[in-house]
């Protein structure tokens, strides 16, 4: 019988975690003994020796739900605290924690402090068993979480997800993921509470209804404008009558571009202060931070916007 193997609980590591492939010490496992693992470490997360860290990256980045760990972690849970997972791999679902936002994930929720002591999971049958890695099948959030567009989102939720928990079917998961619930006024842009999308309404003068566009998906003004072109290319300005949606036949997508370039229309946005500004005057990040909604307005109504945009920009530090 092999020794029961204990694993330390590890908090967040500052390093981005590689995806869970075979761990680096598969060789060791063949003996069923992993002596290094059985050493109890009482240090705080991140303070381990380098070789241990390396191992940890591959294997112990996930809090185990190892069976027989029941007693171990139920001791650790006696504080009545929440079950916290750390780490995650390249699954990129909304539960994936951000490697950079470590602040509130350490300490409090963490089970790896000195108190946890023997809180490591105790394995029967001597095998190292890891909980399953986050693998969200065709999650729509993959793109969202890796965007490096510099938006300072609120830190993503702290725990990595255990695969398949809570038990919700993919369709519902994906549906709710792309449209987080709104708690406040409809007119505000979606709050950035750990969700990886930023939907703002886009209205076009003369169009029968609004659309929504995700600013996080567009990484730049150029992408935003082509997204808008696609969305509004179905509208023929002046032909939208009482029956609403006009036929898409015979319209070129370039019509909107033509309209914009011909300065019949301008793209404007309403910022946090409620002012309407021309899109394109400020750096992209600043724009996404302050944009509440977009409006494609007739240029006759847009006179006088440009100067204010520049002033405002200068007023901000």
């Amino acid at each position, binding site marked *: 019988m092999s020794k029961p193997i204990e694993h330390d609980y590890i908090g967040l590591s500052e390093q981005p975690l590689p995806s*869970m*492939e*075979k761990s680096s010490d*598969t060789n060791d*496992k063949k003996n069923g003994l992993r002596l290094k693992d059985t050493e109890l470490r009482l240090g705080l997360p991140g303070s381990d020796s380098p070789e241990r860290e390396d191992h940890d990256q591959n294997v112990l980045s996930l809090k185990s739900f*190892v*069976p027989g*760990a*029941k007693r171990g972690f*139920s001791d650790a*849970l*006696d504080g*009545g605290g*929440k*079950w*916290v997972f750390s780490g995650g791999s390249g699954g990129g*679902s*909304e*539960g994936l924690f951000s490697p950079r936002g470590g602040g509130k994930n350490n300490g409090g929720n963490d089970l790896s402090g000195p108190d946890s002591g023997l809180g490591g999971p105790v394995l*029967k*049958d*001597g*095998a*190292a*068993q*890891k*909980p*399953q890695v986050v693998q*969200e*099948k*065709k999650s729509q959030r993959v793109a969202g979480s890796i965007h490096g567009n510099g938006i300072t989102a609120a830190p993503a*939720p*702290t725990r990595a997800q*255990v*695969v*398949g*928990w*809570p*038990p*919700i*079917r*993919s*369709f*519902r998961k994906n*549906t*709710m993921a792309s*449209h*987080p*619930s709104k*708690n406040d006024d*409809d007119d505000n842009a979606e709050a950035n*509470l*750990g969700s990886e999308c930023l939907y703002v309404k886009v*209205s076009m003068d003369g169009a*029968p*209804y*609004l659309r929504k566009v995700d600013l996080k998906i567009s990484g730049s003004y150029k992408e935003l404008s082509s997204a808008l072109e696609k969305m509004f290319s179905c509208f023929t300005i002046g032909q939208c009558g009482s029956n*609403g*949606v006009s*036929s898409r036949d015979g319209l070129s997508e370039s019509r909107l571009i033509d309209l914009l370039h011909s300065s019949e229309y301008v793209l404007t946005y309403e910022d946090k202060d409620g002012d309407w500004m021309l899109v394109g005057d400020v750096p992209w990040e600043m724009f996404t931070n302050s944009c509440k909604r977009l409006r494609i307005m007739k240029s006759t109504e847009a006179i006088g916007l440009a100067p204010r945009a520049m002033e405002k920009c200068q007023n901000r530090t």
Partner: protein
Amino acid sequence: MESFELKRSKDSVNSDQSAHWSSFPDEVLERVLSRLKSHRDRSSASLVCKDWYHAERWSRTNVFIGNCYSVSQEIVVRRFSRIRSVTLKGKPRFSDFNLVPENWGANIHAWLVVFAAKYPFLEELRLKRMAINDQSLEFLAVSFPNFKALSLLSCDGFSTNGLAAIATHCKNLTELDIQENDIDDIGGSWLSCFPESFTSLEVLNFANLTSDINFDALEKLVGRCKSMRVLKLNRSVSLEQLQRLLVNAPRLAELGTGSFSQELIVREYEELESALSNCKNMHTLSGLWDAKGIYLPALYPACTHLTFLNLSYAALQSLELAKLLPHRRRLKHLWVLDTVEDKGLEAVGLNCPLLEELRVFPADPFDDEIVHGVTDAGFVAVSFGCPRLHYVLYFCRQMTNAAVATIVQNCPDFTHFRLCIMNPGQPDHLTNEPMDEAFGAVVKTCTKLQRLSVSGRLTDRTFEYIGRYAKNLETLSVAFAGSSDWGMQCVLGGCPKLRKLEIRDCPFGNAALLSGLEKYESMRSLWMSACNVTMNGCRLLAREMPRLNIEVMKEDGSDDSQADKVYVYRSIAGPRRDAPRSVLTL
């Protein structure tokens, strides 16, 4: 003499009786048995005697196969020759939550090939958790000239091109029901594949699809299918488009709206309200994606006869729900998101006395920071107002033993009790005790309980209760619970009607697995993943019980001796031959 004559007459009476019995015309027997709709009744009837077995199998038109690997295509077609409708279920339920490898199996194609040969007049196919690709859909569409109804629930492997094939070729289609599948959604042009002459569609559900559809084609289709009674749209259909569809389909019994959040001017709103209120037959309403509170009143005059309201894609607040409900006193089935919170559920308790089923889904299941959602209080409030409640699916972040005890006291008729406390292993939030007594109360009080899902911190005591009291339990789902083998042994030793047992992340090992030796053949299946079962334990089980299929799926990088995922099921078809390499059959 007398005695001799008596004896002879006795003999003749006997032979008369036996002649009487066997001369009971088959046609009559078949006619009688054909009235039996429930497949369980039919199975019972077929076991009475050989005559009944044959009469039953000749008269059966609908076959239900709960595990596609429990029987082979050859056996099915040999026994039943007149099948018009097939229901097939494939993967274990945990495949819905990504616990089953993607290429595990349950492919429909081999079945279709056999059906094309033996059941050319097949009319209906209902699949759940099967793998089906576009070629199979095309094959289906062209092989069965009478094909009428296709229902795909939680399946995967196909795209909208497959749907196009169905639309193109199935001239007699009455039902196309696509629900919660993993579809490759290439675009909405499949709708225009229904020919102009096609008018038979009664049920159309494409809520599953995400892409924009060809609205023109849809509008014309709905316009010419005068018998349409179920229409469930996807999110891309706007309110304005919905109104146009409803004008042409006032007889709809079930409606799934598209997105309920377009900005409407007053006239458009009034038109929508009027179109909805014209649907006098409507008893089921769903969709309502992104529903905005201000438009919900459009629903009030309509749907006074609603019995099923599915708001699980509409993030309503408690007040919005509270305003909507007083008009819905006939509601029997209600699905909501936990954004309605406990206050919303209080409104449910106050306004829905006839409620039989409640499902509360989490809007943000993966976010620990969320402090709202529903709690024990909401569930208790519903139980006080809805004594007929018998089906519940409840996702929450906290629960207490006392609350559950109250709930089942108020609603003793639960048949399906699925409680998901979202933090694994979480105890009673007031007393910090395990949730054992909660589920103890459920099984002791709800004698009709058929399905139970447990959660929270649970010791073996929960399973002692279940084994001892849950006499009618058929399906049990367990996750992150139990303390030792004893727990699972209790369940396998009790629960006489257990059919499906699915377990994940529990400390049950070989002793537990093997304690169910005698039981597994009376069950449909057992699933155990991330438990303590080893390969040796599985091999032993396979050796002792040759009529069970034991499949083991390994995790990357796990120890050779661990059986990470085990799927055990009875089968008269022997081990399957289409298992991928990642699945070991013992």
